[in-house]
Structure formats: structure tokens, C-alpha cells
């Protein structure tokens, strides 16, 4: 099978259409399962009672916000360096989902902060740098929106996305580098997690659901972008009809 064939937007379009249900349906199932485990199976926390359960939305969405930024910058860079249009389109498609997850993590975080910390918002390093991440997404989206020439929009977006990558490690390590109000990570690459297994299970199931959801939504948006940009091509007109 020739995979390079699918690097062309025209050939990728039908493939993406076929792939969407394969991600969307498992995503929905995992969301339901994860929320069930999170709200009915996982025990209450010894300190926070039930308020901690927002972690099941907050942590996966915060991770997705950061991962998707790296992914977006990666695709944008590939699209720029190798003049791969599909890759640039991918970056544009990811940006909105990433911004949504970042905003969701900020909102759920402040809803969690009120009952536990006693405040919706503080300007500590973790919260401030996450807010900057949201601004970077918004900058990327508005820059691309205000450039009419697609090829310039793709590459200008790539430069901005790459510059912004420096913020992601700052967000991740902020709780270690500075003393912040925000607690440290419960699940680390090295070392034992500091979260009870059923809680962790719920969090990981929802994380998987978020990944699958992102893939499905990005594919849907990618198809829209392909149709939009390949307007002159006859096949796109047919696909729209």
C-alpha cells in the first residue's frame, strides 16, 4: 500500500471520511465509561471529598491543551519545511480543538479552585502560563484568519506556533520550578503515581476519550478545510454537492 498517496489532500479526503466513525464512536463509549467510573466507581477523596471529581475533566483537558499545541506546531513546521499542504491544514484543524481544551481546563480549573483553594483564580506561574497558551492559540487562529493567501497563512502560522512552543515546558514544569498554589503532577513519567488506581483509571479512560474525540473532530474540520481550499478542483465541487 502506498502511504504517500494519502499525503495529497484529494486522496486523503475520502479516507478521512471513512476514519471519522472509527474514532467518534469509541470516543463516545469511553466518555460514558470514564464518567461512570469517575463518578460512581472511584471513591471520594480523603481530603477533598467529592470536589476532586472535576479532576476527571480538568486534567485530561489540560494535557490535551498542551499536547495539541505541540502537535499543531509539529504539523505546522512539517508543512512549512517540506511544503506539505496537508500537514499545514492539519495544524489549522488542530488549533481550534486545542484552544477549546485549553479554555476548558482553565474553566474547570477555576471551578475546582473555588471549593478547594478558596478562590477561582490566582496569578501563579501554572495558571498564568496556561492563560498565555490560550492567547497563543488565539493568536495563531487570528493570524491565519487575516491572511488571504493560504500558503503565506500556513507558513506565518508555523513561525508563530514554533515560537510559542517554549511556553509548553514552562507550563509543565512551573509547579516544580516555582512554588505555586497549584499542586504538582499526580502521574509522572518516573516514579509512582500519587493517585489511587480507580481514580487514575477514570482519568486515563477520559484522556483516551479526549484523544479519540480530538482525532475525530480534527478529521471533520480537516475535510472542511480541504474542500474550502481546493475550491477550484472539480472533485471538491462534487464532494460539496
Amino acid at each position: 500500500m502506498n502511504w504517500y498517496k494519502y499525503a495529497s489532500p484529494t486522496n486523503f479526503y475520502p479516507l478521512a471520511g471513512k476514519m471519522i466513525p472509527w474514532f467518534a464512536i469509541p470516543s463516545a463509549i469511553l466518555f460514558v465509561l470514564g464518567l461512570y467510573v469517575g463518578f460512581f466507581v472511584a471513591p471520594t477523596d480523603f481530603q477533598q471529598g467529592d470536589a476532586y471529581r472535576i479532576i476527571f475533566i480538568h486534567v485530561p483537558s489540560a494535557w490535551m491543551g498542551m499536547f495539541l499545541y505541540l502537535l499543531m506546531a509539529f504539523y505546522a513546521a512539517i508543512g512549512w519545511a517540506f511544503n506539505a499542504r496537508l500537514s499545514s491544514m492539519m495544524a489549522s484543524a488542530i488549533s481550534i480543538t486545542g484552544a477549546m481544551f485549553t479554555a476548558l481546563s482553565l474553566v474547570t480549573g477555576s471551578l475546582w479552585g473555588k471549593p478547594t483553594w478558596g478562590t477561582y483564580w490566582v496569578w501563579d506561574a501554572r495558571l498564568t502560563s496556561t492563560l498565555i497558551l490560550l492567547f497563543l492559540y488565539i493568536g495563531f487562529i487570528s493570524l491565519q484568519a487575516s491572511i488571504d493567501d493560504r500558503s503565506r497563512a500556513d507558513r506565518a502560522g508555523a513561525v508563530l506556533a514554533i515560537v510559542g512552543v517554549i511556553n509548553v515546558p514552562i507550563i509543565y514544569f512551573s509547579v516544580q520550578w516555582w512554588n505555586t498554589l497549584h499542586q504538582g503532577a499526580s502521574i509522572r513519567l518516573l516514579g509512582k503515581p500519587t493517585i489511587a488506581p480507580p481514580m487514575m483509571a477514570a482519568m486515563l479512560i477520559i484522556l483516551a476519550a479526549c484523544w479519540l474525540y480530538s482525532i475525530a473532530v480534527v478529521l471533520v474540520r480537516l475535510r472542511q478545510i480541504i474542500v474550502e481550499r481546493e475550491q477550484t478542483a472539480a472533485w471538491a465541487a462534487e464532494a460539496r454537492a
Partner: protein
Amino acid sequence: MLEATSLGCVRGDRRLFTNVNFALGPGSLLQVQGPNGSGKTSLLRMICGLLAPAEGEIRWQAANIHSLGEEYFTSLAYIGHRNGLKEELTPIENLRVASGLTGTQLSHDEATIVLGKVGLAGREHLPARILSEGQRRRTALARLLICKAPLWVLDEVLTSLDSSAVRFVTSLIREHTNKGGITVVATHHEFDLPADSYQRLDLA
């Protein structure tokens, strides 16, 4: 030696030209012709390395101009649609800055002499903003007299020039060609050059 192989240009959703080929040895001139919007300026900007070709490649002395980087620019003089003059500066200042940026020093007196040659005697101390369009064009062309670049890329240089200035520029180009320089020029003006060194490219 400037060579282009199967060049293609896409701007926005439009494909302007495909499969443009030429090879220019020392002492030759390429005249690019075509209606408005046929990609003349795009082709010239590609030759300058300002625009990356959608297909094909351009080679200078057998090396891809992209891989040559800024070294290529020592061999290149470009005059585009816009004159590339600072309105606030006088012709002398403009010329001295332009030559300073290419790494050569040009004294005040040398600049005055060069400007005299292009017919700007007596105007060299006025800000470019109050000069006429033709005079500004002449100031831009004066750059060709002070640079030693073997490759000239000239975009519509003859517009807004009077007949004596056109004669001057054509003689300048002929002289450059006779000395072994290469010229790429987008214009409809005919040049009086021997057939073996005169190529035409029509972008229909």
C-alpha cells in the same frame, strides 16, 4: 551562467505558468514578455530568490540559488516595480546607503558623479519625495552603475522614462551585455542586440 529548468509558478489558487526553461550564458539578455498578470514579476522575483518556485529550480554557476543563500546576492542587482528609494533621503544618501549595504563604500563625490551620468545633476541634494517619478526611476537605475554584479534583473524599468532616458538605459544594458554580464528584463521594448545573445520568453 543562469539556468532555469521546468519552472512553475502558483499564486493563490492560480497557476501562472509551467515548464519555463532557459539558459543564459555570459553576455546574453533575456526579455520576458506577456500580458498583465501572466507572471512576469513573479518570474523575476523567483530569479532573485525572493519567491520560491512551485516546481523546478534555478541555478547560478551550476548551484541551486537557494543553497547559495546570501552569497548569490553578491552577483545580483535587482530593480523592481517599486524603486526601492527612501523618500526622506536625497539621491546621494540613497545611493551611498545602497552601496554601503552591498559592502562597498561610495564617497559623496563618487555618488555625485554617478548621479550626473543618469541626468540628475543639480538634483542630488533634494529629498527623493519631491523628485518626479522619472527622476526617481533614474536614481534607482544609478544603482546599476555602482554595482559590479554580473546579473541584472530589471522589472519594467523603462516605464515613466522619457525617450532620452530610455536610450540611456538601453545603452547601459548593451554595454553590460558586451562586457559579459547577464540581463533579465521584463519589458516590451525591443533591444538592438545580436541575435545569438538575445532571447525572448513569452508568458502567454
